[in-house]
């Protein structure tokens, strides 16, 4: 057994309050994010037990999952959504928890605002009742989604009981090709490992590709860790991480910052440390990706055809059911498929970099008439940057409008539902049956692929449009 330790080991081990023989570890949680959908029953639970939140200062509440993305200044129309939002506000107030509700300047998607305000820190343990909590792993934190019983545990005791997962390292060396974004890297990995290929593992992403990636890009990759079954994914903190965190509202300051930095610099995986599983991919093999089926593992390079049932891992019946839902056939080319909706947003691709990428393609073009486009910033901070950088003008000139922040059509809990049978190119994270609305058909892709679809009305290789830009 190697004595060299991984990033994951170091962060995990430093949070173990108690180890139970043949059982889980009691893990201390540094940051707990809560939202309106998975928290009400947990708050009810501690109320019934007659206890208060143990560490309200480590808990942060924001409204995002069921909020409307237009007219947020008006009362929420859906009475059930309004009731959940009211419950979150009342619970936050009753326990002294920061609450960033609708209209608050810091409001936005929980996994977008956490990093923006320095709540997300390297070496921390971060949980939220949402599976895409893995996003925060981009900072070298152990971050993962939990169920409502576990939300109650953290509210009550600031701890959670978890069996330590196995470790996996995913290495990608080399340089990414033109138009290949962090989203494509993630969809490529998931297509190679399948939607359950990392179940039971916590992943560390390593290698040149991730070192060269921006913090926004790292968040996109870590966000999608859950889509291959991993509990979470993380990337070693480096100067880029520290530069991002420094000076943010809730980040440590002064002496505390120096102490934190000294700890954070000890975190990266040591040479010779062993992982339970290790896989390596070559950056040169990744092209812009798109999904054709009903789980995120069903993705291909945009210029490839849909695989035959016999060539994919898993049951043929399940595969055929999936293609039937999508009304696609084995061997079909994805290019040229007509689409009806484009959704830019979500905790996966709702950050400023994603809007910059989208704008780079649509600039000087027009939205296709057959496309309804929903562009939803991940937070008010992102929305402000879109305006300040002149991106809003580019969007408006091309016939697009910007909506207000929230999870929106990613899970369609609010009014932003893709109608039955319609096709949506979506920058979100799940193409499950009915995810974006009952009967909706989702093609997951990067902001560049979404932009190319938005201006052509069909699945289009963004590289074709980028060449036009260069040639023009």
């Amino acid at each position, binding site marked *: 057994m190697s004595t060299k330790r991984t990033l994951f080991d170091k962060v995990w081990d430093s949070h173990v309050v108690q180890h139970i023989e043949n059982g889980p570890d009691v893990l201390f949680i540094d940051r707990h994010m809560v939202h309106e959908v998975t928290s009400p029953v947990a708050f*009810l639970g501690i109320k019934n037990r007659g206890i208060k939140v143990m560490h309200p200062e480590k808990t942060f509440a924001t409204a995002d999952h069921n909020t409307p993305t237009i007219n947020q200044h008006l009362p929420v129309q859906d009475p059930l959504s309004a009731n959940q939002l009211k419950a979150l506000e009342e619970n936050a107030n009753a326990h002294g928890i920061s609450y960033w509700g609708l209209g608050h300047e810091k409001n936005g998607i929980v996994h977008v605002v956490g990093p923006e305000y320095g709540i997300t820190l390297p070496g921390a343990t971060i949980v939220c009742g949402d599976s895409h909590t893995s996003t925060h792993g981009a900072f070298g934190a152990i971050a993962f989604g939990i169920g*409502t*019983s576990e939300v109650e545990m953290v509210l009550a*005791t600031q701890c959670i009981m978890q069996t330590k997962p196995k470790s996996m390292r995913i290495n990608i060396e080399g340089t990414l090709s033109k138009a290949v974004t962090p989203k494509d890297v993630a969809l490529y990995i998931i297509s190679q490992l399948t939607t359950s290929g990392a*179940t039971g593992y916590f992943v560390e992403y390593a290698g040149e590709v991730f070192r060269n990636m921006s913090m926004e890009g790292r968040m996109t990759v870590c966000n999608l860790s859950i889509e291959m079954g991993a509990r979470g994914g993380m990337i070693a903190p480096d100067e880029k991480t520290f530069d991002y965190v420094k000076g943010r509202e809730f980040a440590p300051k002064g002496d505390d910052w120096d102490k934190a930095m000294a700890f954070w610099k000890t975190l990266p995986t040591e040479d010779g440390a062993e992982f339970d599983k290790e896989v390596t991919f070559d950056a040169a093999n990744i092209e812009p990706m798109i999904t054709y089926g009903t789980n995120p593992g069903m993705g291909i390079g945009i210029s490839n055809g849909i695989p035959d049932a016999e060539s994919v891992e898993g049951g043929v019946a399940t595969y055929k059911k999936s293609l039937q839902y999508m009304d696609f056939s084995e061997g079909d080319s994805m290019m040229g498929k007509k689409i009806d909706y484009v959704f830019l947003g979500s905790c996966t691709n709702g950050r400023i970099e994603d809007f910059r990428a989208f704008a780079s393609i649509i600039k000087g073009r027009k939205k296709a008439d057959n496309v309804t486009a929903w562009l939803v910033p991940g937070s008010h901070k992102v929305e402000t940057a879109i305006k300040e950088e002149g991106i809003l003008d580019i969007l408006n000139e091309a016939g697009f409008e910007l909506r207000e922040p929230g999870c929106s059509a990613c*899970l369609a*809990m609010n009014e932003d539902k893709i109608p*039955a049978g319609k096709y949506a190119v979506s920058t979100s994270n799940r193409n499950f049956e009915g995810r974006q609305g009952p009967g909706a058909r989702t093609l997951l892709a990067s902001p560049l692929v979404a932009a190319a679809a938005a201006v052509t009305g069909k699945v289009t290789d963004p590289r074709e449009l980028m060449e036009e830009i260069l040639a023009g």
Partner: protein
Amino acid sequence: MAYDKFNILTTSGVPLPIENVDTDQIIPARFLKATERKGFGDNLFRDWRYNSDDSPKKDFVLNNPKYSGRILVGGKNFGSGSSREHAAWAIYDYGFRCVVSSFFADIFRNNCLNIGVLPVQVSPEFLEKIFLAIEADPTTQIEVNLPEQTITILESGEHESFDINVYKKANMLNGFDDIDYLLNIKEQIQEFAANRPL
């Protein structure tokens, strides 16, 4: 929230031989708007179970009177996707106490254990045997024995053992939950918290 104790469960099973059943299928997001834990069973597998006009889909297994019982038998990678505990609540509220599959998604498995639904992971071969036995006779009885950690198709006697960690097993047998445990070590947690830098 404490739940009923689990010991030995003998019942027929409801087969769902589909892989990668995700939590959006188990309970679609639009049904997550309650602020209390009740009524989720009505919307279990909502979009597979009902047409858009709320009429039942005749070919879905939960609408087939031939099949009943307290064990749900699903294909590989059951419960993937979202962390919504509502998926486990819906399964429990509908009346299931046990889900059998050859592979479970992590968060779903934890959620089940936390609310008193026992996830039983069997080999792909044994899963196939269960599906075949139910197909041959929908009333076939399956015994899930938590103390012994075995699952048995009673008619043929075919059986397999399953894993569960000692701590979780004790919780299921006694109907305890994790918060009871954590509140008992509150002082240790507070001492740990006092030494945390963040």
